[in-house]
């Protein structure tokens, strides 16, 4: 059992040295002071919008039991700034860059994808079709099967680079949305964005985030995300990036057993700035302890139920 496990994974053609990467919006250049970006499976900057966006009213985050709600509202300096300043910054790292895009229309998604995919060191595109904070009502493209199909199809038409669709958990049947992505030509799925949520301060009667509703992340949502991964794994053949509540290596393993090939880490970075490296080490230790040689020995490995 003293062989070093191989942590490399492949997400729809994108080869990663390991399955641990940041979740968009919970990572950025300023984290270079605390962790070595070259150790990450990939780097994923915050979702970019075409035009600059101011974002929502503060407070933009609040805490709930075992979780946090954010309503940042995709504050963004716009695609031009992104092309000029943010993407070039990451060029110095060997970890592949996945670019996350948020847009207000299908055409805008396609247009932005085309522009960004042309940047040589952008290795894949993550389509944030699931942000609950763009509109006040929490609606997102990823809630509608037909819109999702059309959106992915359009983006597929403009680039050959891997496309990852970031799904919303706020749906009746994530399987239907996942299949629409697969049929439209997506290369991978991110399961999932945040759960639409709300908290109220009972003394002041004010919503705890300025935008009233926001997205719930952190340990509280993990059991819902694990279920969604399990459902998507059975519904499509696409590789899955699990996201939502990964705080430890064991959380990552749990998502992999449910069907994820890789994981993204968001909230944990705020709690422990070095969380992604810790998670990576814990995955490695687990694999060694169980004599597993590669990540594929874990993916989808949840035990079959015994019938009564």
């Amino acid at each position, binding site marked *: 059992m003293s062989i070093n496990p191989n942590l490399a994974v492949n997400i729809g053609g994108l080869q990663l040295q390991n399955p641990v990467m940041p979740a968009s919006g*919970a990572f*950025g250049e300023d984290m270079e002071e605390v962790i070595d970006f070259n150790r990450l499976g990939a780097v994923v900057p915050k979702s970019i919008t075409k035009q600059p966006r101011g974002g929502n009213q503060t407070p933009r985050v609040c805490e709930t039991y075992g979780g946090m709600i954010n309503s940042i509202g995709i504050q963004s300096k716009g695609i031009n700034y992104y092309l000029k300043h943010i993407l070039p910054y990451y060029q110095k790292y060997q970890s592949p860059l996945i670019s996350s895009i948020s847009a207000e229309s299908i055409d805008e998604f396609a247009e932005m994808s085309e522009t960004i995919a042309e940047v040589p060191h952008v290795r894949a595109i993550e389509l944030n079709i699931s942000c609950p904070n763009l509109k006040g009502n929490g609606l997102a493209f990823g809630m509608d099967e037909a819109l999702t199909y059309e959106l992915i199809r359009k983006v597929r038409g403009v680039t050959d680079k891997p496309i990852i669709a970031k799904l919303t958990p706020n749906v009746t049947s994530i399987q239907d949305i996942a299949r629409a992505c697969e049929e439209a030509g997506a290369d991978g799925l991110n399961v999932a964005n945040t759960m639409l949520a709300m908290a109220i301060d009972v003394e002041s009667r004010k919503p705890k985030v300025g935008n009233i509703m926001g997205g719930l992340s952190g340990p509280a949502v993990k059991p819902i995300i694990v279920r969604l991964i399990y459902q998507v794994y059975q519904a499509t053949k696409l590789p899955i990036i699990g996201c939502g509540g990964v705080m430890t290596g064991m959380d990552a393993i749990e998502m992999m057993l449910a069907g994820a090939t890789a994981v993204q880490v968001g909230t944990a970075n705020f709690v422990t700035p070095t969380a992604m490296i810790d998670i990576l080490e814990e995955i490695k230790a687990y694999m060694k302890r169980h004599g597993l040689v590669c990540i594929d020995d874990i993916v989808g490995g949840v035990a079959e139920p015994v019938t009564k």
Partner: protein
Amino acid sequence: MVVDASPVKETIEPGQFFNIKCGESYFPLLRRPFSIYKINDTTLEFMYLVKGAGTKYLTRLETGDKVNLFGPLGKPFSLEQSYQTILLVARGVGIATLAALAQKAAQDGIRAVAILSARTTNDLLAAQELQEFGAEVYKVTEEEGTSDVANVRKMVNQIMIEHPIDAVFTCGSKRLSILLQDMIKENHIPGQIALEEHMGCAMGVCYACVCDVKEEDAVHSVKVCKDGPVFPLEKVVLK
């Protein structure tokens, strides 16, 4: 709360803060930001007001317990060498933030005059500390009916008559900050403010802690955790 500062290699300056993990489990989940209150040779001090789950946890810590601190973070106050007298106006735990500055001013031979505001005299715990640093301290409280904006304006005016003030520093009250914005404009002196905002990352990546700053008529968004918490008083948009 006094912590052993020997593991901190960076220099720590007034106005900076640490993001402190208040608990071992996932509740409280997020770290809590606290300003540096006193910088000693081998220790650091924080002063906090018990507010919710995070600060409640801190009260349960005992001498010898370990605390998980992330920092120092943020931009400090800046004290120009030319300053002779500065005015500090703080309310509530804002006093903690300005205490470190009073300490530094004393070290730099700058005279500090402070107006400290709170609900009750009991809440003015740090007044003593400021006095020990050599600051001239005026106290106003709701209890005594002295803390209203009009009265503070009168006091500031009086102080400005007695001492030429080179710069104003404030923390902890929007009302007082707006007042001071007014007064520094009138009197053509610079000011600095330490802001508070709910934080996610405290590393400048998540855009949770933004506030607006006016720069030659254009308003743009800055991050309290990274670009602040200290900002030029005249530039911040206090809504």
